[in-house]
């Protein structure tokens, strides 16, 4: 094993090595199989063993010309994957208030140019900036950027102050306003913390290389991959088409780039 901790019993001394391996494999398989509402993954679940490094930088290219009007597939896939629909409105809540309090990790936005009238559809989610304002403002460091470029919230340390939500230039973050009844095993989430798109980090850490939204998009408008690999699909797409960052003037060097905006 790559990680040796103080006090860890060395392998030779352990009496039940086979049992331990068996338990580990069966647990890994159990974890990789279907949780309520989770899309069935391919069986290749090889959980990561080594710490992440910045060798990989995860990013996305979104071709807005392919984003279909009225389509919500990416949103629904994300909601299923991360357990955002596994609960209902709390009893006694007002429907319209609740609708503004429910979490949204990805949303579709339809914009029209004021001068030309041209309409663009695009999905908007956490942009996984290289210099995220949410990371700058978090008092405990719970909002952080992982070495491989994923900006996420360490919910063990989040105190729920919502300052990152004030700071995010893309309004990408959501606050969990209610008790969560059904918790997805791979994407734990609970009341009182802030959350946002994490590029399906539980899939990436378990050996997959695609996000739920990417898989769901029928037009293949979302391309996800390693920005540091010049041969990856996303790098080649970014090299071929002109793309922009949203709010590029903030110089955040986002990991998500849009073409056609």
């Amino acid at each position, binding site marked *: 094993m790559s990680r040796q901790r103080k006090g860890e*019993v060395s392998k030779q001394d352990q*009496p039940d090595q086979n*049992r331990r391996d068996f338990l580990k494999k069966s647990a*890994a398989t159990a974890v990789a199989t279907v*949780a309520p509402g989770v899309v069935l993954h391919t069986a290749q679940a090889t959980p990561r063993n*080594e710490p992440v490094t910045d060798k990989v930088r995860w990013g996305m290219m979104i071709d807005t010309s392919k984003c279909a009007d009225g389509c919500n597939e990416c949103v629904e896939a994300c909601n299923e994957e991360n357990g955002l629909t596994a609960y209902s409105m709390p009893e006694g809540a007002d429907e319209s208030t609740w609708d503004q309090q429910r979490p949204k990790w990805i949303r579709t936005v339809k914009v029209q140019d004021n001068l030309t009238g041209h309409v663009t559809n695009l999905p908007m989610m956490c942009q996984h900036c290289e210099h995220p304002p949410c990371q700058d403002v978090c008092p405990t460091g719970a909002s952080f950027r992982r070495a491989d470029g994923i900006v996420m919230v360490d919910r063990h340390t989040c105190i729920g102050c919502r300052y990152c939500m004030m700071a995010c230039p893309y309004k990408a973050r959501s606050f969990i306003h209610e008790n969560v009844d059904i918790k997805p*095993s791979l994407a734990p989430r609970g009341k009182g913390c802030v959350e946002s798109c994490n590029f399906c*980090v539980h899939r990436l850490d378990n050996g997959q290389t695609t996000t739920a939204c990417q898989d769901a998009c029928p037009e293949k408008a979302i391309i996800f991959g390693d920005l540091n690999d010049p041969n990856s699909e996303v790098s080649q797409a970014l090299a071929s088409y002109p793309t922009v960052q949203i709010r590029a003037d903030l110089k955040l060097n986002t990991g998500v780039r849009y073409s056609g905006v």
Partner: protein
Amino acid sequence: MSYRIKLKGLALVVLAMVMSIASVSQAGPNWRETTNSKAAESARSGGQCVRETQWMRNNHMVLLKKDRDFTVHEGIRTVDGSLSECVACHSNTENGKHVPVNAMEGPDGKQFCASCHAFTGVKLNCFQCHAAVPTE
């Protein structure tokens, strides 16, 4: 920005509290003899999973606290303290369905976590976010 600055003294205080409390508590009435979780079956045949039992009783919180940083900040998922693996092993089944591992009622009384934590009065908030039943 890499890791947060931590007060070592606070960690030591927490560890001392955990050790002093946990060393007094017992793991509930005979859960090893009677329950049907994978961990109980393994314990009946003399096995152990992550660490030896007394070490776990004293230090499971330290293990969980370190491992959660490995998983969240470094993306390591194989760490044998992974909470979903604990839950998968330690939850009992009743009528074919898994009982939440922190439930106060179920086969043979309080379930695995509650059997100690109710006695020690240390509130668990793991399962406000983490699933208390294994995914199947």
